[in-house]
């Protein structure tokens, strides 16, 4: 299932959090050979994990991590604005309607459909929170997979070769795309919506609710 967890909520799911950072080390350092920091516990973390980002995580049946991505608002500090400006012709992304998506990661032994399920969750975020675009930093070879899923980014630029090629791209949401992604993921749209609602609070119809 998909879980939406801010960093300060990860402690409620210790196994999920731990295996996410371990799988990130496996993907970004071991498999891609990116210059990332892995701690003594074998977990890959960077400075943006300290900014209380929102993680979208595919949780496998045994409670461990199957895949994930990390979101931050571009009105605050972001990786794309601080490290990848050369790929965007020096133009920083800064809008309350654009969120940054980074560290898109798949566990080696996750279920098929995980990448699509994550993309589906990205669509829920756009729809549910009024976000118009995601700007993402990704392993450039993932573009093929994104295309196959039906969630292709507009690639703004890439750098490096082979395993180490990094891309910056922009995602948009369309309802048609969401349906296709749902099919590829094998996750019905209403199940996807139910996970989103479970994370961000179901609407409780209540006539007399007030606050500041």
């Amino acid at each position, binding site marked *: 299932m998909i879980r939406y967890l801010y960093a300060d909520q990860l402690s409620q799911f210790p196994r999920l959090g731990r295996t996410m950072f371990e799988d990130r080390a496996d993907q970004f350092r071991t498999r891609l050979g990116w210059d990332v920091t892995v701690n003594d516990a074998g977990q890959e973390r960077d400075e943006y994990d300290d900014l209380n980002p929102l993680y979208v995580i595919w949780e496998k049946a045994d409670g461990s991590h199957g895949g994930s991505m990390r979101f931050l608002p571009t009105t605050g500090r972001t990786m794309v604005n601080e490290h990848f400006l050369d790929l965007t012709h020096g133009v920083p992304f800064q809008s309350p309607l654009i969120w940054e998506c980074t560290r898109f990661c798949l566990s080696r032994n996750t279920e098929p459909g995980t990448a699509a399920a994550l993309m589906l969750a990205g669509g829920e975020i756009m729809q549910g929170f009024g976000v118009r675009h995601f700007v993402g930093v990704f392993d450039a070879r993932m573009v093929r997979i994104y295309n196959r899923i039906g969630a292709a980014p507009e690639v703004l630029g890439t750098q490096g070769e082979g395993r180490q090629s990094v891309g910056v791209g922009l995602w948009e949401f369309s309802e048609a795309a969401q349906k296709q992604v749902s099919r590829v993921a094998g996750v019905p749209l209403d199940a996807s919506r139910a996970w989103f609602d479970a994370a961000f609070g179901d609407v409780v119809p209540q006539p007399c609710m*007030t606050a500041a």
Partner: protein
Amino acid sequence: MPQLDDVIARLECAEHLEELQNVIEWLCDHYAVDDMVYHWVSSNGTQYGCGTYDPKWVARYLEKGYLRIDPVVLGCYQRFHPVDWKRLDWSSKAAPAFMADAMEHGIGNQGYSIPIRGPNGQFALFTVSHSCSDDEWHSFTELNRRDLILLAHYFNQTALKLEPGRAPEPTQPLSPREVETMTLLAVGYSRAQVAETLSISEHTLRV
């Protein structure tokens, strides 16, 4: 919507904080909602804002220290997604009395709040509230959500620009972690909860 561009331009040119008050009153009329509020909670617990709430309610809110128990503030702090009040956690012990008091002061039964994450852990909220049915409110927020998110952002940008003394960058700047700690304490977290949230020991906290 050209009107939205006009409002944003007005915010960008604003030279005094009073201008924010004028703009928010105009917006409240324009969207035909009961109330609209921009609320900045700074790291030392002081609050700044503008909006259309009855001054009696604002005074009451401050006097009662509602900042510490307000489910809207607690539910939005450390978050960056906009939220309908109906999705917040109203199950705390203090919430029912707070709710009743707010209603008595004419606050609407519906609300939509947009948390704003500014520089160095700055935290502000932009809220629209109204009295109407759930369906009407749903239609309103669906229709206007992106406008409201943009407006929230521009109010905050303007507030930051006009009141640099309020920005959490005093002469002796606090570290982002210190700002976070102070803000968590200001919104009513216990020392133990702050330590837990920041993954540090209570001893390290030393505030």
